[in-house]
């Protein structure tokens, strides 16, 4: 069997994988939307146990948020480097993105174990259940992203990440930026806009 043509006709001029991935992101919006909506519905309804004011550490989480934002910048730079065939900087920026993502996960792990130490576990109350499920899902997505980026890094070292493979990096970037945007929403809704009534003096 040989090829009829090396080029495939498409109706839009876009690669199938890019279209599929945007569709996937649309679906993920509903996934995180349901988690965030549940968090909001249950905010302030815990019957016992620690709630937002007592336990969330906004300064610390601001740092981890900044870290994640910077990782998105690194991702953009990584894609640019792949496009122009710059192997060295492609590897530097891919590693940086994955590294900053790992640091974010480190902050999450620290925060989770600190909360448990302070008496807020997964099953303690509604806040625990909704908070850990929402941020846990997000963290799992970050972890998948870190593994993905690491794979791309390895491929780069194998010499298999030239400009012709830029779409792979672009789609990984799409995923990474989406996960970052979801975090911005979570940070805003959970940490910054706390609607749980403050305990009366």
């Amino acid at each position, binding site marked *: *069997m*040989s*090829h*009829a043509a*090396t*080029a*495939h*006709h*498409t*109706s*839009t*001029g*876009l*690669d*199938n994988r890019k*279209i*599929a991935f945007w*569709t*996937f992101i*649309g*679906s*993920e919006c*509903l*996934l995180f*939307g*349901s*988690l965030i909506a*549940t968090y909001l*519905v*249950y905010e302030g*309804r*815990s*019957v*016992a146990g620690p709630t937002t004011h007592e336990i969330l550490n906004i300064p610390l989480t601001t740092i981890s948020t900044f870290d994640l934002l910077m990782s998105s910048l690194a991702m953009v730079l990584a894609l640019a480097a792949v496009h122009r065939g710059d192997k060295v900087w492609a590897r530097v920026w891919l590693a940086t993105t994955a590294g900053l993502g790992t640091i974010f996960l480190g902050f999450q792990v620290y925060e989770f174990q600190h909360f448990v130490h302070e008496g807020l576990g*997964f*099953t303690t*109350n*509604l806040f*625990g*259940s*909704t908070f850990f*499920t929402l941020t846990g899902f997000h963290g799992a997505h970050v972890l998948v992203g870190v593994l993905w980026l690491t*794979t791309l890094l390895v491929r780069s070292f194998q010499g298999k990440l030239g400009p*012709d493979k830029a779409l792979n990096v672009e789609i990984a970037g799409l995923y990474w930026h989406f996960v970052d945007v979801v975090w911005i929403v979570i940070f805003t809704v959970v940490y910054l806009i706390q609607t749980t009534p403050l305990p009366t003096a």
Partner: protein
Amino acid sequence: MATTAVPHAPAAPAAPRGLWSWITTTDHKRIGVLYGVSAFIFFLIGGLEALVMRLQLGAPGASVVSAEFYNQLFTMHGTTMVFLAIMPLSAAFFNFIIPLQIGARDVAFPRLNAFSYWVFLLGALFMNASFLVGPLFGADALSVAPNGGWFGYANLTSPQYSPGPNIDFWVLGLQILGVASLAAGFNFITTIINMRAPGMSLMRMPVFTWMSFVTQFLIITAFPVITIGLVFLMFDRLFGTTFYNVAAGGDVLLWQHLFWLFGHPEVYILILPAMGIVSEVLPTFSRKPLFGYAVVVYSGVLIGIVGWGVWAHHMFSTGLGPIADSVFSASTMLIAVPTGVKIFNWIATMWGGRLEFRTPMLFAIGFISMFIIGGLSGVMHSSPPADLQQTDTYFVVAHFHYVLFGGALLGLFAGIYYWWPKVFGRTLREGPGKWHFWLMLLGMNLTFFPMHFSGLLGMPRRIYTYGADLGLDTFNLISTIGALLTGVGLLVFMYNVWASRSQPAAGKNPWNAATLEWAIASPPPVYNFAVLPTVSSRLPLWTEGGATPIPDTPPEPVHVPGGSYWPLVTALGIVIMAIGALMHRALVPSLLTGIAGAAVVVVGIYRWAFEPFEV
């Protein structure tokens, strides 16, 4: 027309024959057949569950089955019919027909397509295995199948009120099935957006492809919502979280909102493909184009969009308050309008035509007639005060069986008879086909029409028996007889399949239809089109020059991707993870199994990503 460069890579040689070729297939046509056969087997299982239920309800106070087993039967009947019969039967058509109708050689991601099928099959087997594996959980056989209803309301499904593994099977099984549907959704959306033949604009696509397109968007937006609802339930059951725990401040209505936010789009997922099929069959056997193509398409899109705004009409008895009741009542009534418009357009298609009452046409007409009845009882439900008497009674059972059996299923049978020659090369026989239709139509009406009465006369749903003092005996007896008759009709269909093996070859276009799939051989060659046509009409085969000629053999060799077993391996990994979760009462074996399953998934994905495979 735009092109993108695709790098060369040697393809694994495809094994065209034998069991292995089916296990590793990535050909949309074979995957379609796999879906169709599997869906039909599960349809028979679901039908058997219904027959046993009807035998139990044939007389008051019967003891054909115990209360506990009956509750498993009605749960599995609903779950099976929705997720393991109607949806995969629709998927069979998505798979086989969509690429042919848009002039493509396959779907966008053939291995993802195979993955969807294997995940579906394994998920279906996982859930049905619950009927057999009771002893593994220290219980009797036939006692651990899901038993909380297909809608699994919290907090009956909580660990406190459902301590056994029944609900675990349900929660995990549905999540597995969700993965299959989502993957297929991404695949078909990309295929329809990006792989249409030159000249096939969106408004030249056949209506079946259009309705399937809308369906895929409903799938990818609705399934994440129920996934989250199920995740909450799973966490409550496995880890002791408090999502549906009232004592901890949780709200049982959260489950209902999440479920029905999925559940209402789900019913449009069930009906739109069948509506698409009917929109193909009617013009062919009326010898006339579809009346109001654009209106029919836009109505389908509108139904999909407005369908997101009606979910709480399943919750009118929960005390939402008069304002919410009014809003959802209004949106539900609103959605009747585009639905009615489609019915009128179908009738107008036949008006002035030259009608051939072949079997596909009989089923399509049956769809219209039965859907009118189901739609009208739906309008009755849309009024909350009236619905307070109707909801949770056999009146609702009548309503949704008219739209799902009389609607979706009859429409799907229209598709089966219509496209059978394209798939298998021979038509099904007309004689048994007509018997099948009339037996099924009569049986269906005998079964479900009396339920309008038994419901309004006070028979609630989901009861294994009823009082002899309620006057419901005759209605129930008639329903039971109808169910048996329907079963006979189904046997006639199965006979027809067997007896049609010796039919003469059907040729490319036995019905003289208008759309692209009828321009190629029956069954199609593995590459579908020897040369991809350029299309200039919505009805390419009915229009002079509507499509450029397609030779019988390709002028130069066509590349066909090989098979792959990594989709099956990855699917297996997912089910192994689910089995690990099922074992959660034994912590260490459960963790080990779950981790092993995850490892299989990761290995499967990596090998899949890096194997040489070219579309």
